[in-house]
Each structure stands twice: as C-alpha cells, then as structure tokens.
C-alpha cells in the first residue's frame, strides 16, 4: 500500500498532466459549441472510446502496468473522474460553465473537454514522475515508466499500437475541432493532399528510425523485425484512423462529401502522425 502522501503526489502529477495536455482544447471555442450541439449518443460513445483507450494505456504503459485487470480498470475510472472534475472546474473558472445553463449544456461541455483531460491525466501520472519509486511498497508490481527500471522492459506490439493511438489522440485532438482543418481541406488541391500524406510518412519514418529521438531505441528493438517501411505504414494507418475517428466525433464529417472527409483526414493526419510517432516515443 502506498502512503497517503505518495498517492497525493501521484494525483497532483495527474492533474498537472491533464492540464498540460488539454489546455489548448479547454481554450477552444469550437469545442464548447460542440459540447452543446453533439448528440448524447455520440457523447456517450466518446466516453466509452476514451475509456477503452485509457484501459489500453494503463495496461501497457501506465504506472502499474502488468497489474491485474481490476487495478487497471480502477486506475482508468479514477483518471476519467479526475478528467471530468478538472474540466468542470477549469471551464467554470473560465466562465464557460454557469449555473443558469441547462444540465444538458453543462454535461455536454464538460464531457467533451474531459476526455482529453483524462488521457492527459493518465499520461501525466505515468510520465511526469521523478525516478524515486524505491519507497513504494510491494503493492506496485510493474515499476514506473521512468527510464532506469523500464528500459529493459519492452512494450509489446499491441502496446505499441495503443501507444501510437494515445500519441495521435493527444496531438490531433488539439487541432481537430478548429475551423482551420475544414478551411484547409476545402481549398486544398489533390496534389497537395498527396504531398501532405508523403510528408507525414517521411516525418514518421525519420522520427521512428533515423534521428535517434528519445526512446526510439527502445521502439526499434521491440519491432525491429517489421522493417522501416512496414513500421512507418502501420503507424500512418493508425494516425489516419485516429484522425478520422476524432473528426467524426467532432462532427466534422456531417454533411461533407467523401472527398472532403478524406482531405480533412489527411490534413489532420499530419498532426496525428507526429503524435503517433514522436508522441508515442515520449509516452512510453
């Protein structure tokens, strides 16, 4: 069992991470509007999808990875609860939530913001800690995500995919709800879309395999047998899928022709790819 002080520290780390990663979204007006407009089914789906992502992250890379499922689930629920709380308080302080709003509005805005905060909390708890976990009792089996202890502990292929998803979500979610994506996608020519896709692939390959980015050694050790091309393409596929999902959640595909959706996905895919490549190396 951890001491109360220790867990207080851990929660504070989570709160810091949550704010750090999601502040751009908390300050984005399109997201507030979306919270009001989005259908409750879409919001519940958003909550469930985030929960699955949190389970994955906590299972493969979180603070207490390899611990039993109950513990992973408990951590995920805590992170989500903290996310809701942080989002609510921040939005209230910002004056975006007032008590003469309807309950539906308040819940909508809070939920749509809280999900990214929750992922930030999860990453913050696992990543922002200093090395000093020697005073942790036998309760924690996996050790923390900090280098020394975890360097020899490789993240499996499934873990890599979850990590890439988390990185992509964290980076892409900040840009996805802005009007700029629609504007760029609406005015861009087909050749430029292609160029963006190639640019994403190139930057991904460089980050993952060539420029010796922090953590990339660990990554290449884990998946060396897949080769550069396969690794990059798989990462880009994840990035595109995440980008498309986020855009759909944010209602950006509503009433758009297929080609418009595709262009938006590729445009957002640049951010998602950076997250899936560089982000995941930083997150592991």
């Amino acid at each position: 069992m951890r001491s109360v002080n220790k867990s207080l520290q851990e929660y504070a780390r989570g709160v810091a991470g949550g704010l750090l990663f999601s502040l751009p979204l908390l300050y984005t007006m399109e997201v507030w509007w979306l919270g009001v407009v989005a259908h409750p089914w879409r919001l519940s789906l958003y909550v469930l999808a985030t929960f699955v992502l949190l389970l994955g992250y906590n299972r493969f890379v979180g603070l207490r990875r390899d611990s039993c499922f109950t513990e992973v689930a408990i951590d995920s629920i805590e992170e989500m609860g903290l996310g809701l709380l942080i989002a609510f308080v921040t939005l209230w302080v910002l004056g975006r939530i007032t008590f003469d709003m309807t309950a539906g509005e308040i819940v909508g805005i809070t939920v749509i913001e809280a999900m990214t905060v929750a992922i930030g909390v999860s990453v913050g708890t696992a990543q922002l800690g200093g090395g000093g976990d020697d005073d942790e009792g036998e309760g924690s089996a996996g050790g923390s995500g900090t280098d020394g202890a975890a360097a020899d502990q490789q993240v499996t292929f499934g873990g890599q995919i979850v990590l890439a998803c988390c990185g992509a979500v964290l980076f892409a979610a900040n840009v996805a709800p802005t009007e700029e994506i629609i504007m760029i996608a609406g005015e861009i020519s087909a050749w430029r879309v292609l160029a963006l896709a190639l640019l994403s692939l190139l930057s991904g390959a460089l980050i993952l395999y060539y420029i010796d980015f922090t953590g990339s050694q660990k990554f290449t050790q884990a998946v060396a047998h897949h080769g550069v091309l396969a690794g990059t393409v798989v990462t880009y596929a994840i990035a595109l899928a995440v980008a498309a999902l986020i855009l759909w959640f944010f209602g950006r595909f509503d009433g758009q022709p297929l080609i418009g959706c595709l262009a938006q996905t590729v445009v957002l895919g640049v951010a998602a790819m950076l997250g899936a490549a560089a982000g995941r190396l930083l997150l592991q």
Partner: protein
Amino acid sequence: MSEKVEKNWLEWGVFGVSLVLVLGTLAYLVYEATTLGDQPPIIEAQLGAPQQQAGEFAVPVTLINRGDQTAAGVMVEVTLESNGAGAEIERGEFSVPFLPRGATREGRVSFRTDPRAGQLKARVLGYEQP
C-alpha cells in the same frame, strides 16, 4: 498476475468519487439520448417591460428554445407598430450565437420612440441548424 488491490483511504475516496462521476455522467447521457425527440428548434420570444435609459427605450427580449435541437445564429426582429393602422414605426433586431434546447437567452432591443405609443411584436427571422 492477480494480486489483491490494496489502496489507502485517499485512493478509495478518489476512486469512489470518480466512479460516481463517471457512472452519473454516462447515466445522464443515456437518459438524455433516450428521451430526446427530433423536433426542430421551437423558439419562443417573450417581450419584457421597456426601460428608459439615456434617451432611448430598451426592451428586454427572452428567447426560449422548446424544441429538441440546438439553434445557432438565431436572428430576432422586434417591430413597433402604431396602435390603429398597424404601420411600422420602428424596428430593432439582435442575434444570439447559440440557443441549445431548453435554454433561455436574453437580449435587448432599443427604440428611439416610446414603445408604449404602439404595439411591440417579436419575431424569429431565422436560424441555422448546426
């Protein structure tokens, strides 16, 4: 690996609160989703009593959306018509960026003529369905 989950009181507390928050939020969303109809926005405009300020007359207007969907960019026009013939004396307008379902928003329209000299009529000109 199956070890017993050991937590101190703070962790159990945070977990408890989180569980209530998450389940509560989900329950509310599901409740909303199941009770939600697909009525387009039904916007009602109510006029308040005119107040004289700085030589002008400000008329408060309250908008209530009784439909199931949000209306965006709601434009409201208030006309002042003469008592007898119904001729338009003056016109004012304002717009509200967002009017979620069930929500109430307030605005004011100002007139140079004393609105008590005629009849005020409020009308929603149009809105966007986001």
